[in-house]
């Protein structure tokens, strides 16, 4: 005898079941939400907002647009490709005179300088004399400096007349204004950003691979040793975490420098000549060695947490079924550690791509990474270019993450 219920299910006292359930769970949900509110607020203020601001800065620079309202108005009225008329020069001279009064020609020149180098002095010089210039302004300005007639300068000013621009991304992608004002690829020698960008990914890959090679046996040992011994080993693995990054990095300098410990031992052993001491620091080798050391625990821990869950009976089963120890490792053990390998590699790689302090300390000239370039432009107060470079890095990491999800699946990631 089943009662046929039509429509939504009701509780015993006639309320819809779904509504009753929502009320019953509302309290628990509110509690859960309140528990995460502090973290949510913290992340919002210290992470989402700054990154959003950084992304905005990479598209925005009002150094020129705010200082040159008249020229901006003329650019608005005359579309791209129009002839540069006397009217435009008049607007420019008026703006230059105003800049001189407001002491902003340097700031405006800097904005143009990003895409047309050498324009800061041009602006400063012209602004100083703008007040006294007489029409025709075109001749007056060209008399001051021939460059005022250059198409690429005008193209740059047209772009800079709006505070919103993709110029910084063009620069970050090693694009350069040609004489006609259009962007084109810079010569190979000038392609510093993309070169460094790909080198950073290459070096991160190398570091990740070395970390994997070094971490795998250690993690395996950690997972299989008896408890008392494995906790001692675990302390050794975690020890670097408890030491200052700076101390660890400088100790590498002590070890690897030409008069350092490693070189001296090699010389003492007669493996190398005193005159042929190896250069292992302040170059790429230094960056790789020191970063591998710093990032190693991030590979060991996820590997360990996965290996710990693999019972020894799998390998034993494989051996009893007739597999040699190598076959058992390759076909049974290794495939089961893949989630750990993937997690550790992703973690180390993403950390390495954005690493700054270690390459800055031990990288020398050819061991610098992309972050060092970002820092370089930040130090020079070129925030927009730094932001554009940082945004490139961010997008690259997100793309990698997406690829990883497509190929391996983020749900297979095991961090501990």
């Amino acid at each position, binding site marked *: 005898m089943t009662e046929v219920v039509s429509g939504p299910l009701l509780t015993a006292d006639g309320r819809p079941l779904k509504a009753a359930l929502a009320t019953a769970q509302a309290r628990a949900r509110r509690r859960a939400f309140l528990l995460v509110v502090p973290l949510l607020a913290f992340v919002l203020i210290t992470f989402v907002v700054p990154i959003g601001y950084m992304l905005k800065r990479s598209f925005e620079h009002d150094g020129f647009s705010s200082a040159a309202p008249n020229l901006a108005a003329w650019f608005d009225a005359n579309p791209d490709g129009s002839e540069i008329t006397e009217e435009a020069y008049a607007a420019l001279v008026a703006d230059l005179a105003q800049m001189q009064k407001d002491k902003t020609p340097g700031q405006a020149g800097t904005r143009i300088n990003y895409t047309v180098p050498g324009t800061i002095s041009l602006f400063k010089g012209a602004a100083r004399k703008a007040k006294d210039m007489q029409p025709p302004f075109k001749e007056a300005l060209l008399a001051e400096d021939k460059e005022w007639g250059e198409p690429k300068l005008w193209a740059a000013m047209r772009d800079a007349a709006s505070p919103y621009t993709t110029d910084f991304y063009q620069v970050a992608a090693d694009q350069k204004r040609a004489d006609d004002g259009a962007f084109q690829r810079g010569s190979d020698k000038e392609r510093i950003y993309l070169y460094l960008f790909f080198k950073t990914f290459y070096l991160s890959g190398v570091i990740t691979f070395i970390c994997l090679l070094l971490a795998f046996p250690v993690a395996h040992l950690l997972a299989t040793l008896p408890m008392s011994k494995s906790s001692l080993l675990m302390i050794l693995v975690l020890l670097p975490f408890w030491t200052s990054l700076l101390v660890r990095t400088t100790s590498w300098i002590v070890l690897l420098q030409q008069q350092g410990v490693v070189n001296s031992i090699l010389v003492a052993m007669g493996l190398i000549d005193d005159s042929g001491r190896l250069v292992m620091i302040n170059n790429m080798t230094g960056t790789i060695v020191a970063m591998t050391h710093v990032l190693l625990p991030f590979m060991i821990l996820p590997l360990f947490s996965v290996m710990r869950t693999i019972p020894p*009976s799998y390998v034993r*089963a494989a051996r*009893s079924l007739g597999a040699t120890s190598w076959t058992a490792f390759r076909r049974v053990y290794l495939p089961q550690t893949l989630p750990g390998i993937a997690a550790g590699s992703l973690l180390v790689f993403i950390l390495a791509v954005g690493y700054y302090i270690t390459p800055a300390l031990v990288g020398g000239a050819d061991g610098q990474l992309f972050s060092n370039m970002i820092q370089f432009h930040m130090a020079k107060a070129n925030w927009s270019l730094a932001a554009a470079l940082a945004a490139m890095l961010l997008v690259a990491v997100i793309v990698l993450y997406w690829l990883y999800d497509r190929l391996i699946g983020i749900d297979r990631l095991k961090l501990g």
Partner: protein
Amino acid sequence: MTSATSAADAAFVEFDRVQKSYDGQTLVVKDLNLTMPKGEFLTMLGPSGSGKTTCLMMLAGFETATNGEIRLNGRNINQVPPHKRGIGMVFQNYALFPHMTVGENLSFPLEVRGMGKADREAKIARALDMVQMGKFANRRPAQLSGGQQQRIALARALCFDPELVLMDEPLGALDKQLREHMQFEIKALHERLGITVVYVTHDQGEALTMSDRVAVFNDGVIQQLAPPADLYERPENSFVAQFIGENNKLPGTIEELSGDKALVRLSTGELIDATAVNVTQKGQKTLVSIRPERVEFKPEMMPPGAHTIEAEVVDVIYMGDILRARLKVAGADDFVMKMRNTLGQTRLANGQKLKVGWHPQDARALDPM
């Protein structure tokens, strides 16, 4: 069968004075001697830490014997690595490779033996049919129930036709009903394929129902190696009597001893009849062991002239097929008597006084523990 062939048969698996120590201070396995003929189903039974699993692991090659020799088919295998022993093994947690399908799991032992694809497929199909899992070749182990995984583990251990199969508590993770069913199936497979099986368990029911012989392990020593019926009905020492099945123990002293007949005086002064098993002289302390279902309280069921002792019913538990009465006998109230729940069975009341007795051969005078 001539004695020559039986001697050769008897030596399929041999443990010869095998000792094993992990730390160099204590022996986990002490002087193990065991000979198994081909085709036997032998169970190693014992509490955890008794050395039974260590013995199995030494036979499989995952542990090395500290001393002594292990021989398979007359050949010393102490130095042979596990993958060259050709022994099938079923593990406690099945150890099915989770990243491979059922078919790939079964294919693994055949691939590492370099077998061709057609042969492999035939063998896999045969092995899966053997355990009634023919339709599951493309499933992953995680998609199977415990019982199904168990069958696959069994098929994998058998599909490369090993002559010897080791099973390490293979049914431990299954529920009672499934376990009993699988016991029956494993036994049937053993008989059909004629393989030799060494089975490790701590479940005595499993050991008794499946085995040709059972080796009861305790403290690194085989306490008794015998067919199940002997083990249950004729335990050779107190440990075996206690470990296998339910058992009543009455401590006492040997009053008279003639041949295997013993008269035992209990601590309360009463006399009982018993069979002398490992007692040798008058005045010796002993522990008399009697199975609860062999205790009688109706005078007509007792042999004439047998000694009886006073008992008082403490409680009676109704268990369906049997009635289990707890009695106070010789000062202790843990004496158990089991009665079949038949139509005319006498219902005992709590506090009722009665006299209990038994056939002397059912009471075994053993070493005091």
